[in-house]
């Protein structure tokens, strides 16, 4: 036993020595643009996170292989595993920001909230594509945060608009019951103020079914209530393991699936497939193309997936979430390219990147040049509006894959924008003294 204790002691001493030795940082390579990717391939949200992470990384790697980077400068891509955990997210941020990081994509509302105040201090923009703080769309208050193409409030307004169309006009919503099942965190609660406002305006009843994060995989009590309340429509704001569970439960209580509509983060193939053939008819919003019929995606396959440079499973390519990750990287890449054009520099900084993102104009022609014609709605960021309230479409699960069933639907800008401005003013007031915008508008 004595030797074992000695062993334990020496292990402890060795660990202590290793601590002090290992903690050094790698130097930044010259002549490259450094893009850290905060991803999660582990933890409870890995099921959704892996596809996003693959999509983001693959597109950037493909640019390196095909074009030698952007503007002749290679991209240095580093993934940092957050596990959707706010503590680790902040650690990843601190570990990578010193290497000349251009932009952060936290993929977690919690981490986004922590990075928003740091962005203006460290001069590194945050790109939360279709998530995060809705109020960040107000560029006057949040010059360093971008949530193009849409905020959650845009999404919620599209859902109500779509339901109104199904009922033959929004005036017919009067007296209807719309159930809202959501992840009980900042993410899921965000759309409630807008839904409540619309409920008052159109006279429908909003029923709320919160799902605590710990009980994502056990929603029987929520769906029991749904069965009792018999809402006419169900709207879902879910992520990770919550989505497949909700769809399974909906199938179990025989809720009419064509009246069940998810946000764009509840639009994964794996989510819907959990309900099997009975889930056919489930709908979800989306703003990025589905499928592989895009030259850029074929290039990803040709340059990095088939050559084994990235670990992506070719089967998962073209899925909703994978393509969402690709769209995220397209925005990053276009931001870098625009920044290079604006500044004339090849190797840019976070402040240049902010200007690039703020001047982002992804036109139809540009999408076609990128080999992504029809992949997304053309999007434009202005200094005033960092989200842009771009149209989204609705896709339907046919039992095997998602099919686009509507044209692009415009969000209700007239309702969303005043709410965004009020929320931004509220945020600035609560976080007083919030820094006033000093960055000049580049366009």
């Amino acid at each position, binding site marked *: 036993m004595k030797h074992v204790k000695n062993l334990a002691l020496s292990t402890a001493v060795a660990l202590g020595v290793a601590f002090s030795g290992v903690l050094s940082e790698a130097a930044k390579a010259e002549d490259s643009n450094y893009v850290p990717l905060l991803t999660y*391939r582990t933890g409870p949200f890995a099921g959704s996170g892996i596809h996003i992470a693959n999509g983001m990384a693959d597109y950037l790697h493909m640019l390196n292989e095909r074009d030698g980077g952007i503007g002749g400068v290679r991209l240095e891509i580093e993934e940092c595993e957050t596990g959707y955990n706010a503590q680790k997210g902040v650690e990843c941020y601190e570990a990578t920001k010193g290497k000349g990081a251009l932009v952060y994509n936290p993929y977690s509302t919690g981490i986004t909230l922590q990075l928003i105040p740091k962005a203006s201090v460290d001069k590194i923009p945050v790109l939360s594509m279709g998530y995060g703080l809705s109020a960040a769309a107000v560029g006057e208050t949040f010059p360093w945060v971008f949530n193009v193409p849409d905020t959650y409030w845009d999404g919620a307004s599209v859902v109500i608009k779509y339901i109104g169309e199904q009922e033959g006009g929004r005036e017919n919503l009067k007296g209807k019951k719309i159930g809202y099942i959501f992840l009980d965190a900042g993410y899921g609660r965000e759309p409630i103020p807008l839904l409540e406002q619309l409920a008052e305006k159109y006279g429908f009843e909003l029923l709320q079914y919160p799902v605590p994060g710990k009980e994502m995989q056990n929603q029987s009590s929520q769906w029991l209530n749904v069965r009792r309340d018999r809402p006419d429509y169900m709207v879902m704001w879910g992520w990770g393991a919550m989505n497949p569970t909700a769809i399974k439960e909906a199938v179990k209580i025989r809720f009419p699936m064509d009246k069940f509509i998810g946000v764009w983060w509840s639009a994964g193939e794996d989510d819907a497939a959990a309900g099997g053939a009975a889930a056919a008819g489930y709908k979800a919003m989306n703003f990025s193309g589905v499928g592989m019929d895009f030259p850029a995606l074929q290039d990803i396959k040709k340059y990095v997936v088939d050559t084994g440079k990235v670990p992506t499973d070719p089967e998962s390519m073209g899925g909703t979430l994978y393509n969402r990750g690709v769209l995220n990287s397209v925005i990053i890449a276009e931001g870098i390219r625009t920044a290079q054009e604006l500044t004339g520099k090849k190797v840019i900084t976070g402040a240049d990147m902010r200007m690039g993102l703020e001047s982002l104009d992804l036109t139809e022609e540009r999408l076609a040049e990128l080999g992504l014609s029809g992949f997304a709605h053309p999007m434009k960021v202005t200094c005033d509006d960092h989200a842009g309230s771009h149209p989204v479409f609705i896709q339907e699960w046919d039992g095997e894959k998602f099919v686009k069933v509507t044209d692009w639907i415009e969000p209700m800008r007239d309702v969303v924008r005043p709410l965004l401005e009020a929320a931004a003013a509220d945020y600035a007031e609560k976080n007083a003294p919030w820094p006033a915008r000093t960055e000049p508008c580049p366009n």
Partner: protein
Amino acid sequence: MFYREAGQYKTSYEADQALFPIRQDLVGIGVILLVAFVVIPLTANDFFLASIMIPFLVFSLAAIGLNVLTGFCGQLSLGTGAFMGVGAYAAYKLTTIFPDVNVVFLVLLSGFFAAFIGAIFGLPSLRIKGLYLAVTTLAAQFFLEWCFIRIPWLYNYNASGAIEIPKREMFGVVVSGAEATPLARYFVVLSITVAIAFLIANVLRGRIGRSWMMIRDMDIAAELMGIRPLQTKLMAFAVSSYICGVAGAMMVFFWLNAAEPSSYSITLSFQILFMVILGGLGSLGGAFLGAAFIWILPVALKFIPGAIGIEIGAETVEHLTFMVVGALIIFFLIVEPHGFARLWQIAKQKLRVWPFPY
């Protein structure tokens, strides 16, 4: 040889009862404080301060708090995360209601709210013991977490449901919020942690600490000898929760900058409990060692593959870290169930007899 106390004569009771009666301990503590207050700030970079030292100190303080309750008073608690949350939310409310009051004062004040809540949830400890008490503290964890989610007043009706820390200054230096430098935050966290650790070290060796240990070792005997279980146990709950509350407030004010209710979930409670168990129940030094093991080791392990030139994915590193840390936890618990504090004692004994072990 290095650690021999022979020849250190005590000529007064005061010297005999000093916090560090052995000269080597005194010198050792002095060196550690010198490193912490002078060497680290002069040499460390921002990443080391912000992502390693600050969380390490916050967790150390929380582990000290739980150690008071579990290690010294013998009451198992799984509500640490929630009590830390009470401190954080109290400090947030206080600083938004009184924006001009010094934030460090408010952080220290917020501990009293946690102490109050902790004492209430400590009441069942008079009737139930051991694992059953753990279950009632688990109830505290879930109930308080529910409050953080469901009472919007606590987070000032923020649309995000999270608390976001505003900019606060102390003596003209920004100490909280995004603009605070890691160095400023480090000094605040270090000072609070060191001050509370010294205070608790003194409480523990006095009348109060001894009465806690009597309750821990045998509560009936303690009661027969005149220790009142009600006051003693509740005081342990209150003191423990106070420290945890301060640690929780420091966690969001000087480290994370924003916190969702899930930041104070059961996971945090377990994290702190593992630190206490691995470090050594009933040892203040153990709390620091346990926190270092649970927090610093995984961070350090992540850099190893890069440092020796192996290119593997971030998620593989994460999986490897999980496995290595898990294996080490099992290894240390099998080999030395009394934790790192006991290993340190063994090391001291070896240093004492070196180079002639017997």
